[in-house]
């Protein structure tokens, strides 16, 4: 299980480092370094097993039914990346301590860096492809945050946005690809996918899945033609560029290619797509790098070119090419990260990165210059350095491929040309910056960097040298393990040697070095030629495209969303009409085969009153008071209907809610305009009548079809178990507080939230206080009628008694928390009406928010309580006790739950009405006319 800890430690480290703002810079750095150091120790602890050929796995089941688990695995490839991510990450953190100025927030950078580290570790160690994708997206997001670290700079914001758009878009393609693969294989588990090569490649959708996955990989690794985001990402602080945009994140795309190599590679399409993309990127990157005057720009295009090289190697059909790819991943990370750090020092100590100004730095910073020159030589592929070895392997492999059929001889030639350009820009990096005359008006007086700022570079450059001189002692084992993980079989026999004798690859290297130096000497003409080309600004093209997409979408949205609620509602009703009506036309017979019940006179009268009420409401809807009376008739008839059709609990609830609703609406009348103007044109009335009647007919028909068909209900279970399992005879109440207690808990929570929302809406309400009614008659000055006041006061204890009775009997007879709560609330509302809220506040000063919270807490606590007896949430308990004087009594935990319901209902109802009533009571006395 210790595998979890590697990404988890880094995540914890991210949170911790975010809170180191109060500490000194050294302390902050030291604390941030703890987590990756521990993670690195853990990884080293696992290393022997991995080197022995084991794959370590650990899985935490999450949603096993959907095959979604949190799963990690560690094999050779993952281990290599874990070492790189943690090792270079620690160096970068150390370096950033000296790089950041006093004005920059160090905890912010560290927190983002560690978050990014977590995401990268997650990618390389995931054993579930959906989880892999999740971490993949997290790298895009954390990279966005890191590029925009200097958010006040426009180029940083734009660069961050571009990187997010490109890599995020690629991430979506990747998700689609991974889901396709998951669908083909029948599992999202990486182990299963990697061993299903035949199944995937023989599937009809293989090509689609491959292209989608490659899109994800290519956008992330800045492959041509998606490469343009990487140079713009250089707006990030240099430690970030060193870490994300050369050593790790852009390698995530390469990692993906390597990871899925056993499952997806081997087909013609793979070699063509991967190989040619890599080749194009290699050439384009190497060529453009030469012309960049910005040091970081040069390094960015060089990175693109080297990523292309690795991609090309993965697209070559030989096993040794894969070994070379893995080797170059390691080498590129070391020399490129050190070059970025050296660039950071130069920028830091001179104030510029422009190579036209930077000259002759050797005199000012000889130490840094030496380090940078060694690293740049490794980049160029000079012997005795690590870059030479992998480049030599690369040249050798280009000679053993058939990528282009009979034209395959082109590839070694093009590789040599790219090699020559790579020598040329490396030469420029060394010569232009450190020699080539005197510096030209630098913003700062240059000097050597602080001692420890150079320390991370020293380590990386030392690695370049050691690997370059003693490859077999240092990287042989790692390379074998990682390559066999990529190939899915034992690694081929290979020998890394500095001297292979005089052969073709050596000749190619020699040609590249000579050619490169020649290109560099002739650079003046090349620069002139480049300047004569029409300018290509990827940023402008990108921004114009984005702008067009956004404005196109905005135009579509504006066409649909014109701000008219009436229109949205109409459209929604039409959708309801079509989708609910359509199946009815496909049904052969509306009426079911149940025996119809005869209509008796009571029902007929009830239905008649209900219809009169409904139609009356519509007719008089502009006469507010009449409409209110009419709708209350409907509400009463509905509760009568519930009584009639064997639902006493519903009838009681409906009746009490009806009272509260009507009081609420009466209160609302005071705040809303007294007259509703006649607004709708006759055509609109006709149209709305048409829609309304059509929906009414459809819903009525569905209802008729439903209730004339026999019912096969699951309620038998509830009826059979209400007494034996829930301890109550009122099945409806037992369902509410026991069988479906979780639903009820959710519902009272919603009730509480609605009440709180209302409370919030009424705070600071600007008031319209009408001074007179619509006909100009002033309001009555009489405040509270004496008769009502005295009667209501004496009614209160009685009403409370009734509600207690209803509450207690609820488990066995109609009643329960909801109804009792409403009865209590009405009793109090009557006091409010009779006396006013100030009178109540003097006597009964409670905070309804606290009451609601108490209610929900009680219900929740009953649920949680069952955990203490090792039962699932909300398991109920009941038993019978002999209590003196009372007799044999049942006590059930459900009654505590119902008590919570009761309190919540009382609190919410009173809060809604009392806060509205209070608005008028506390309002300033001046009267405002509308």
């Amino acid at each position, binding site marked *: 299980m210790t595998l979890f800890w590697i990404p988890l430690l880094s995540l914890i480290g991210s949170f911790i480092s975010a809170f180191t703002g109060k500490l000194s810079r050294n302390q902050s750095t030291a604390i941030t370094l703890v987590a990756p150091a521990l993670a690195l120790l853990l990884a080293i602890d696992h290393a022997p097993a991995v080197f022995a050929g084991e794959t370590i796995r650990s899985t935490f089941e999450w949603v096993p039914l959907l095959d979604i688990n949190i799963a990690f695995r560690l094999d050779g490839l993952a281990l290599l990346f874990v070492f790189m991510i943690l090792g270079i990450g620690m160096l970068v953190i150390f370096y950033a301590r000296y790089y950041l100025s006093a004005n920059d927030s160090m905890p912010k950078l560290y927190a983002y860096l560690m978050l990014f580290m977590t995401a990268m570790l997650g990618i390389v160690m995931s054993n579930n492809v959906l989880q892999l994708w999740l971490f993949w997206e997290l790298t895009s997001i954390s990279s966005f945050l890191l590029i925009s670290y200097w958010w006040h700079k426009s180029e940083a914001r734009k660069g961050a946005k571009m990187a997010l758009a490109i890599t995020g878009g690629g991430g979506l393609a990747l998700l689609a690809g991974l889901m396709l693969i998951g669908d083909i294989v029948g599992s999202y588990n990486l182990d299963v996918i990697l061993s299903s090569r035949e199944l995937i490649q023989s599937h009809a959708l293989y090509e689609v899945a491959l292209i989608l996955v490659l899109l994800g990989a290519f956008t992330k690794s800045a492959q041509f033609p998606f490469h343009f985001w990487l140079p713009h990402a250089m707006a990030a602080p240099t430690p970030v560029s060193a870490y994300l945009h050369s050593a790790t994140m852009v390698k995530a795309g390469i990692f993906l290619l390597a990871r899925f190599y056993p499952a997806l590679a081997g087909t013609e399409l793979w070699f063509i797509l991967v190989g040619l993309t890599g080749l194009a990127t290699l050439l384009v990157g190497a060529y453009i790098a030469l012309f960049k005057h910005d040091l970081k720009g040069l390094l960015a295009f060089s990175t693109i070119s080297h990523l292309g090289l690795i991609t090309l190697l993965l697209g070559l059909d030989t096993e040794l090419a894969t070994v070379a790819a893995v080797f170059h991943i390691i080498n590129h990370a070391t020399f490129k990260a050190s070059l970025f750090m050296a660039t950071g020092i130069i920028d830091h100590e001179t104030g510029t990165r422009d190579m036209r100004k930077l000259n002759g730095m050797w005199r000012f910073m000889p130490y840094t210059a030496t380090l940078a020159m060694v690293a740049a030589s490794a980049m160029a592929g000079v012997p005795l350095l690590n870059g030479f070895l992998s480049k030599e392997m690369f040249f050798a492999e280009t000679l053993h491929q058939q990528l282009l059929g009979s034209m395959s001889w082109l590839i070694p030639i093009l590789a040599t040309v790219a090699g020559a350009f790579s020598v040329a820009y490396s030469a420029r990096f060394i010569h232009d910056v450190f020699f080539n005359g005197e510096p030209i008006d630098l913003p700062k007086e240059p000097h050597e960097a602080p001692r420890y700022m150079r320390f991370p570079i020293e380590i990386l450059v030392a690695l370049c040298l050691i690997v370059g001189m003693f490859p077999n002692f240092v990287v042989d084992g790692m390379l074998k393990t990682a390559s066999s993980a990529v190939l899915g079989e034992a690694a081929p026999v290979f020998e890394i040697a500095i001297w292979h004798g005089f052969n073709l690859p050596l000749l190619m290297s020699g040609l590249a070095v000579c050619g490169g130096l020649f290109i560099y000497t002739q650079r003046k003409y090349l620069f002139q030629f480049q300047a004569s080309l029409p300018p290509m600004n990827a940023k402008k093209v990108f921004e114009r495209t984005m702008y067009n997409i956004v404005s196109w979408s905005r135009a579509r949205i504006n066409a649909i969303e014109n701000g008219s609620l009436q229109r949205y509602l109409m459209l929604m009703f039409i959708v309801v009409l079509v989708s609910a009506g359509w199946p009815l036309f496909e049904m052969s017979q509306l009426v079911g085969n149940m025996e119809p*019940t005869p209509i008796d006179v009571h029902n007929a009268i009830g239905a008649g009153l209900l219809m009169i009420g409904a139609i009356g409401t519509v007719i008089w809807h502009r006469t507010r008071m009449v409409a209110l009376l009419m709708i209350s008739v409907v509400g009463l008839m509905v509760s009568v209907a*519930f009584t009639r059709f064997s639902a006493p609990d*519903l009838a009681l609830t*409906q009746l009490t809610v009806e009272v509260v*609703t009507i009081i609420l609406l009466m209160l*609302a009348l005071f705040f809303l305009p007294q007259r509703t103007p006649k607004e709708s044109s006759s055509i609109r009335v006709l149209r709305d009548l048409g829609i309304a009647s059509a929906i009414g007919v459809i819903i*009525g028909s569905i209802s008729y079809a439903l209730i004339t068909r026999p019912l096969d209900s699951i309620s038998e279970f509830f009826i059979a178990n209400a007494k034996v399992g829930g301890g109550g005879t009122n099945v409806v109440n037992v369902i509410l507080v026991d069988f479906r207690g979780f639903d009820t808990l959710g519902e009272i929570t919603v009730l509480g939230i*609605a009440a709180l929302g209302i409370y919030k809406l009424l705070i600071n309400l600007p008031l319209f206080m009408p001074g007179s009614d619509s006909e100009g008659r002033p309001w009555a000055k009489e405040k509270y009628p004496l008769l009502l006041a005295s009667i209501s006061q004496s009614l209160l204890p009685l009403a409370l008694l009734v509600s207690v009775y209803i509450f207690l009997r609820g488990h066995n007879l109609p009643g329960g928390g909801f109804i009792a709560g409403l009865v209590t609330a009405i009793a109090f509302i009557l006091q409010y009406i009779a006396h006013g809220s100030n009178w109540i506040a003097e006597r009964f000063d409670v905070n309804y928010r606290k009451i609601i919270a108490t209610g929900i807490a009680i219900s929740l606590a009953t649920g949680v309580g069952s955990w203490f007896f090792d039962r699932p949430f909300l398991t109920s308990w009941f038993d019978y006790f002999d209590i003196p004087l009372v007799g044999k009594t049942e006590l059930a935990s459900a009654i505590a739950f119902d008590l919570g319901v009761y309190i919540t209902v009382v609190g919410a109802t009173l809060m809604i009405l009392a806060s509205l009533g209070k608005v008028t009571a506390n309002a300033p006395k001046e009267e405002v006319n509308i």
Partner: protein
Amino acid sequence: MELLYASCVGLLVACGVFLILRARTFPVVLGLTMLSYAVNLFLFASGRLTLNKAAVLGYSSDYADPLPQALVLTAIVIGFAMTAFVVILAIRGRSDLGNDHVNGIVPEKKGKA
């Protein structure tokens, strides 16, 4: 009786929808209330219509379906909370916007004022 019941549900839906499509907030609130009556009746009837068979054990031999009743009971209470919320929203909207039109602005009259 089923036909009568279904007709009532249909009529309530029709009246509710018509009121919801009105332009001022108060009729819309009435419409929502009406529609929630209809929805409650509709859901309740999915347990079929039964006379004198309340689901209280020991009072009859055959019981009405208690499940839709339990669902509708909470629906009534939540429906009240939602109605209340809409009412308060209407009041707030009226005082912030200065009118009670559902679109937030009173359309200008075409032709004669």
